[in-house]
């Protein structure tokens, strides 16, 4: 009896210590993702206290869930690019071009689901092209993708001649409902769009690829110390090209989804608005600019934060011209928070 008691006391007295160090360790390993989550919660609370009625109303989140997936797809894929030490500014043009490929396929009679996969293949191919130009052309990816963004958008504009294309009849198809259909969560007024679910699937896929797959592991090592990775037999060029393929596929998915979200209407510049949004989300999400490390979940939270700010600010009663100010403030404050928990080690 006595010994049993002693054992219990011991276990209890030891527990807080191990529990604390476990949390400390968890924070040290995931500090940047947790900061991004904290930023999201704080932004939400800040808006919510200003207008609780709106922020407790599910209808507010219908719009949020509808618009956030595009940013999620783009931001999480950019983690691979930035972590490998590259930068991709060409994805907005790929979004537009891929939307066009999707739209033309549907107009030409390809069913929505095969058209979607065709578009993903197009995204992979154009990403491969961009990667090859950057890596084998030995051009800084910042400059190369900046130029390619204009170039690709230019080609799309020339081909489209300023037209927008629509195919409303495809909205009756099974594929359309599968990708962007909406359903009520239980008996609430909250309507969850399917593309939000697909974006969660994409986040899970990226998380496993980034953290537990050889590919993600090597992307991180190439970004951390390229010379060392090369000496250890990692094919640097292949990794660097591949991150642009990931980015291209995500941009293509986004392009095909944006067309469907707009009730099967395509206009060539549909990706343009996402350039700074996705990059801001990435850095708010805690992926540092210097490469080598990054966080998929952080990017996910960052995408939610930057999507929440414009509509949230207006909803909270701020006049529209406050939006940029709040946006900038959130970016700067989260950057400072990330510095505290994720300073660079050399």
């Amino acid at each position, binding site marked *: 009896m006595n010994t049993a008691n002693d054992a219990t006391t011991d276990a209890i007295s030891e527990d807080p210590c191990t529990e604390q160090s476990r949390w400390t360790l968890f924070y040290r390993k995931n500090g940047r993702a947790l900061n991004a989550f904290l930023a999201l919660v704080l932004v939400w609370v800040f808006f919510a206290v200003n207008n609780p009625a709106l922020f407790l109303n599910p209808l507010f989140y219908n719009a949020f869930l509808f618009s956030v997936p595009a940013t999620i797809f783009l931001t999480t894929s950019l983690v691979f690019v930035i972590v490998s030490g590259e930068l991709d500014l060409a994805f907005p043009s790929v979004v537009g071009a891929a939307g066009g490929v999707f739209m033309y396929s549907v107009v030409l009679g390809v069913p929505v689901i095969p058209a979607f996969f065709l578009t993903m293949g197009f995204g992979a191919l154009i990403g491969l092209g961009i990667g090859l130009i950057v890596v084998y052309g030995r051009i800084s990816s910042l400059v190369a993708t900046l130029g390619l963004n204009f170039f690709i958008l230019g080609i799309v504009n020339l081909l489209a001649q300023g037209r927008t294309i629509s195919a409303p009849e495809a909205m009756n198809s099974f594929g359309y409902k599968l990708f962007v259909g909406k359903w009520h969560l239980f008996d609430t007024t909250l309507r969850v769009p399917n593309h939000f679910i697909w974006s969660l699937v994409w986040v899970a896929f990226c998380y496993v690829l980034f953290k537990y797959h050889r590919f993600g592991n090597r992307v991180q*090592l190439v970004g951390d110390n390229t010379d060392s990775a090369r*000496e250890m037999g990692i094919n640097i060029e292949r990794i660097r090209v591949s991150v642009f393929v990931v980015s291209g596929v995500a941009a293509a998915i986004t392009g095909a989804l944006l067309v469907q979200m707009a009730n099967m209407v395509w206009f060539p510049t549909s990706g343009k608005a996402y350039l700074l949004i996705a990059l801001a989300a990435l850095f708010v999400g805690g992926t540092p600019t210097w490469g080598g490390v990054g966080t998929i979940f952080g990017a996910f939270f960052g995408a939610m934060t930057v999507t929440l700010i414009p509509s949230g600010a207006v909803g909270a009663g701020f006049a529209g011209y406050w939006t940029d100010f709040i946006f900038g403030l959130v970016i700067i404050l989260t950057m400072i928070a990330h510095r505290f928990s994720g300073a660079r080690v050399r």
Partner: protein
Amino acid sequence: MSAASEPVVELRSIVKRFGSVEALSGVTMTVRRGEVLGLLGDNGAGKSTLIKTLAGVHDPDDGEIIVKGKVRKPWTPAAARDAGIETVFQDRALAPQHSIVTNIFMGREITNSFGLLRVQMQIDEANRLMREIGFTSKVFNPESTVGTLSGGERQGVAIARALYNQADVIVLDEPTTALSLTETQKVFRFVEAVKSSGRTVVFIGHNIYHVWDIADRFFVIDRGTEAFEGAKSSFTGADHLIEMMHQLAETGSADTSSLLEPG
């Protein structure tokens, strides 16, 4: 070190030119199994070219590289590694923002057939390798970030990685340069552990006292060619070796008649 120990790496009349500059002009060097060979030479003597040649970074313009009795051609970093020679370069070795285990398995991850990392298996293997060279501590474990480790500990990571890669010859490029005394002692312990496991170490250093303490035999290079070599027992002490190197620097040759009969 018994003189009868078999050669594991033999460089024969290695010539390496960069344009009109001849960095190595016919170096012949033998590395014997199980020894710690100290490689010495002034800046610009050809030391780093010789190391890079050992590592496969440079393919010699002339001469032969023989590893375990076989002539190796072509000579590339991959060929050197396949032959069991692992080189740890001073600054370029590690990814500082990643864990010890990630660094040990860099480029040779243990994965399943889908390419997913076998995390626990890697940690167990890392623990085993780290214990093998006495690279253990209460303050770090295989999941600790390399950037938080001291200079000597980082050498431990690089050496553990070399062991995982089944190297039997480990070339350490200036592993103790810029390290404190205690950190240097740590590196020496790792080297001793590697040696006692029957493997071979080539130790390159600026600080002759460091090299003296750890090496069994010395090979001194000067102006792209071998100046002299000798077992530790053929010198009366570190000062003898230093005196010969001074002589070499001043007159261009060292008086090898002062070397004792090894025994």
